């Protein structure tokens, strides 16, 4: 059976922002949950280094794409939750547009190979 290999680190880095934005579009979340969700959704193929997520989140916050708030979880643990901002929604739309374009070009070329 063909197995999809681990995704290259350049692609992992490039996809971090659109993935975070898209996850936060579903509702506020925190670092650990974001990493877990990406891992589950990618069947473990998109492997982020845990510590490197936070500089990305902080950069996005400085750029005004997301905002954060400290709150206590149901277990009483303090967590920093991230929320999507208006500029973040716009950035997400741009990412979707660009990634869709790349995907359609790639798919088109692939189809031509099998014609």
């Amino acid at each position, binding site marked *: 059976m063909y197995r999809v290999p681990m995704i290259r680190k350049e692609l992992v880095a490039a996809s971090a922002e659109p993935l975070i934005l898209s996850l936060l579009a579903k509702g506020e979340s925190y*670092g*650990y949950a974001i990493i877990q969700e990406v891992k589950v959704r990618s069947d473990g193929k998109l492997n982020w*280094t*845990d*510590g*490197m997520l*936070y*500089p*990305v989140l*902080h*950069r996005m916050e*400085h*750029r*005004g*794409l997301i905002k954060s708030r400290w709150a206590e979880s149901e277990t009483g*643990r*303090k*967590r*920093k939750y991230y929320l999507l901002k208006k*500029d973040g929604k*716009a*950035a997400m739309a741009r990412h979707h547009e660009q990634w869709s374009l790349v995907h359609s070009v790639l798919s088109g070329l692939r189809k031509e190979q099998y014609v």
Partner: protein
Amino acid sequence: MFDLEQSIADWRTQMLASGIESPVPLEELEIHLREEIEWQMKSGLNEQRAFEISAQRFGQSKNIELEFKKIERTFMKKTLMCTIIRFLGLLFSVWAIWGVFIAFVTSAQYGPKALLLHYCLTVTVPYTLLAILLALPYSKLKGGLWKVLFTLLCLSGGYVCLYLVTHLPSEEWLMIYGPWLLILSQPIAIWISRRKMSNQTLEQMK
């Protein structure tokens, strides 16, 4: 005997040593580490192994710090630019208001037309230079062209005044509306230029 709390304290010290000094990221990182340890232990690992795997998953502290430093530099640059632009905007606005006041006070002695001509030139030229300096580097950005055009349009308010002063006979009309056109249009231009340093613009510059 393995001490989890001591290991986490050591990990924290290591993070501090690498340069992550700000308490906010460090606290956030530690919370994440603890959650991961908890998850690893729930999946059957003992404390020591859970800690080792979690710390390893976290990555090199130097690399994390390097990424945080990059954000800090960008943020500092952005803050500095915004401060300079605000200061210049304020300075020019005060200068413009002062110029109008002087023009009104001394107009009887020197004649309003000469004063306004002098005033329009001294105020408009630096304003225009500033706008060009601020606006042009961003003109290639998506959606930035209209902002640049509007900024330059506002700045041209000074030149409109200059034209009116030299070509229209009604000095009284000019004395009433001309200076206000300058006062209102040019700080708006500065504000728009400052807005160009918004997060979205900086994002597109990366």
